[in-house]
């Protein structure tokens, strides 16, 4: 397709008559007997110029470049949905750079006309040029893009299907000109000096974008007012285009194009520049004081609808799925939240932990600090405290027991010596219970000084206190003889503990020296050993 050549020809023609744009409609390759966008040249207003290099280009080259950029923009927008991540090159146009005229030109790229439909179609079928004056006032029936035009506030367009190059060879994809019975159509928009200000509220319900609230009035583009003269207005009544469908097409196209664009073109529309809106712009802190609910229940009506109304039916006689045999017929999808599974598990774990912390808080006399670390510290302290107290209490208890035991022992001992025989068994029984505590008693009475001990006889001395511990074989009357022996030594035995098990007598004697002379432990030992048949074990 000789695109470049065609475009240049178009460009030449359009610029020569100073029209804003020209469009070539090709016979579509995909749809037989339908006309679609072939090529175009845009010569109208430009808002933002984007070039890669700041070269000084000639006017014609600028125009060509612009047309190319517009075409690229259209293609990228319409392909935008399939590849949303594709970035346009920085020098490419983006939607907000375009003027309304350019938008019209862009949207035209999407139009397809059947034979006989729309201006290009009718021109093709009739084989005659069509002039349409004041096209913005034309009904959609005649000029299907009038809604588009209106919306973009185009004014006073001229349409003509006209010749460009009469001698162009007829190539298959497109037809030119009256000569070949085909059609080429040039359309142009013309800005008049006296602009009709169009109501932007026209067709507002049908359209998506209110792209400009400022009427275009750059009328000084070298417009040629001379072309107001009217050619034939050929209002051929061909197929009446459903205005709704034409409008729908526009809507669909714009929404498709704009959807892929990240710029919120609709933003200005919502930013309440439209004074007719009932909504007021949001101001931070400008909010009305909250109005107290008359009734205390939030979401009252919504809750009634959801909770109470279903139960009004049949006074709540509704079936559970199982009763209704739904269980067999219905599917029970397994909730598949593998994405959130670990999150949920983690959350449950945290909840359990929090629960335990609450329990702990109630047990531990902690301070009012709510955080978990303080609570744990207090718990540790409390535990240590408690352990210490337990230790103290246990030792106190042993002491008390020991004292009780000692007193009893003395009493028993006295009984025993007075009535040795009879009480032996009895006392044995009593005394055997003390055997368990013997070790503790020994510990308590331990005084570390002047020790002299053998395996079965221990004599300890501390100043005037003497402790004798030994074990020996028991026989009748041995206890009396031991006490005798000790009394010779001038010892005051103030505490005696003895027990007999399996014929072995164990004795612990605490004594004090009566007089000033202090006997050595060895002396005590010898004295004991002199007791007749005292066999230490």
């Amino acid at each position, binding site marked *: 397709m000789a695109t470049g050549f065609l475009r240049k020809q178009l460009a030449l023609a359009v610029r020569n008559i100073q029209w804003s744009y020209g469009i070539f409609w090709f016979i579509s390759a995909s749809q037989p007997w339908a006309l679609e966008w072939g090529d175009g040249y845009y010569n109208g207003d430009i808002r933002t110029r984007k070039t890669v290099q700041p070269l000084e280009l000639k006017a014609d080259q600028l125009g060509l470049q612009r047309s190319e950029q517009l075409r690229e923009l259209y293609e990228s927008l319409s392909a935008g949905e399939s590849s949303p991540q594709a970035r346009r090159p920085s020098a490419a146009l983006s939607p907000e750079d375009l003027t309304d005229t350019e938008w019209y030109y862009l949207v035209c790229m999407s139009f397809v006309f059947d034979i006989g439909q729309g201006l290009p179609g009718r021109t093709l079928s009739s084989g005659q040029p069509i002039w349409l004056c004041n096209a913005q006032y034309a009904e959609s029936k005649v000029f299907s893009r009038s809604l588009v035009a209106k919306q973009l506030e185009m004014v006073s367009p001229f349409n003509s299907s006209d010749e460009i190059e009469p001698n162009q060879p007829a190539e298959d994809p497109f037809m030119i000109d009256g000569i070949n019975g085909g059609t080429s159509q040039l359309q142009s928009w013309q800005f008049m000096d006296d602009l009709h200000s169009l109501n932007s509220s026209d067709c507002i319900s049908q359209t998506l974008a209110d792209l400009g609230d400022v009427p275009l009035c750059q009328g000084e583009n070298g417009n040629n007012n001379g072309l107001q003269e009217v050619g034939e207005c050929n209002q051929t009544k061909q197929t009446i285009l459903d205005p709704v469908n034409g409008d729908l097409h526009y809507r669909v196209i714009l929404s498709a194009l704009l959807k892929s664009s990240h710029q919120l073109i609709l933003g200005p529309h919502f930013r309440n520049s439209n004074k007719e809106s009932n909504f007021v712009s949001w101001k931070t802190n400008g909010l009305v004081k909250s109005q107290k609910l008359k009734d205390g229940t939030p979401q009252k009506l919504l809750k009634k609808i959801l909770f109470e109304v279903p139960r009004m039916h049949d006074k709540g006689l509704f079936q559970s799925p199982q009763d209704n045999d739904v269980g067999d017929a219905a599917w029970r999808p397994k909730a598949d939240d593998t994405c*959130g599974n670990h999150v949920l598990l983690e959350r449950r774990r945290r909840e359990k932990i929090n629960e335990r912390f609450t329990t702990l808080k109630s047990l531990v006399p902690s301070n009012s600090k709510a955080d978990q670390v303080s609570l744990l510290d207090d718990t540790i302290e409390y535990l240590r405290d408690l352990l210490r107290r337990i230790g103290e209490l246990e030792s106190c208890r042993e002491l008390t027991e020991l004292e009780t035991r000692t007193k009893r022992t003395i009493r028993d001992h006295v009984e025993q010596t007075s009535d040795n025989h009879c009480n032996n068994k009895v006392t044995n029984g009593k005394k055997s219970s003390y055997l368990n505590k013997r070790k503790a008693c020994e510990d308590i009475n331990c005084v570390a000084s002047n020790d002299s001990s053998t395996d079965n006889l221990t004599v300890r001395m501390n100043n005037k206190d003497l402790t004798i511990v030994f074990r020996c074989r028991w026989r009748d009357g041995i206890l009396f003889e031991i006490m005798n022996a000790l009394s010779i030594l001038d010892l005051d035995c103030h505490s005696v503990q003895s027990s007999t098990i399996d014929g072995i007598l164990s004795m612990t004697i605490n004594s004090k020296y009566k007089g000033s002379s202090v006997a050595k432990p060895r002396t005590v030992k010898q004295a004991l050993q002199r007791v007749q048949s005292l066999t230490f074990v």
Partner: protein
Amino acid sequence: MENSTQESHLRSDNSVTYESPYTVYAMAVSSTPSPTNLNHQSIALGSFLEDYNNRVDIIAFDPDTLSVKTHPTLSFYHPYPPTKLMFQPNRKSSSSSSDLLASSGEYLRLWEVRESSIEPLSVLNNSKTSEFCAPLTSFDWNDVEPKRIGTSSIDTTCTIWDIEKGVVETQLIAHDKEVYDIAWGEARVFASVSADGSVRIFDLRDKEHSTIIYESPQPDTPLLRLAWNKQDLKYMATIQMDSNKVVILDIRSPTMPVAELERHQASVNAITWAPQSSKHICSAGDDTQAFIWELPTVAGPNGIDPLCVYSAGSEINQLQWSAAQPDWIAIAFSNKMQLLKV
């Protein structure tokens, strides 16, 4: 200082108010022009009376003259308040001169709205015995596949109906507790919210599995309403019981909401996405305010502020933003229905 927002509903040059004889809850805006007059839009209003006899009225809204007309015969009785009303979406205007309206109560009912009368078409009842039924809390009409309606019920199930044949396509036990709302995403994908506090997505091609994409932070706090963004199917919005927050979810990142819109001063009653823009959502609540929010790509440090606000006379219970009239938002509060220009 007296703010104009307080009495903005009196700016009656643009808003249109209809006062109904009874409290209004269910509301639907037709997707096609009224059969009587192509410029008019039909709006169905369901009453809320704690009584057996409730009514549904159809009124015609004319955006050009900013007026609302009632028609005495375009009205029918409904047993107990209808929990939801909806017109068939994307109904081809050329198909017939009538419109289809669905209502949910103890069953799903279909009605044909003609020029001057309403004919009951069918009652869709899935229970095997005549005594029991599972009352419906909500339903949604699939706009890609218009013969498909999904209903949600307090018996924890969601039922998918083929309304052309009048049979059940399938029934799913969707949640552990009552299901409160349902919304279609694509032709075969829907989502539902429940008293168990979860938002779950179901695909009819794989009925064995569902995906939980959000659970309310306090366990077992019911989620009452759900709205799926038809312009951008990644996003959903939901509201929790007794909460003033609108939770925006992205289905690609489950359990973590994308945004929480917290500017209402009382609990939110209704949410609806803009029909023509993927970034706008409207919410209304007990604080008598309706906010329009624009979701930015990056949220500011203090959260997201609404774009604009409207104050009604009392708590707003219902909100509808129709694709057929994208410049108008319909709200219902106490016994009034109001159409607001955006």
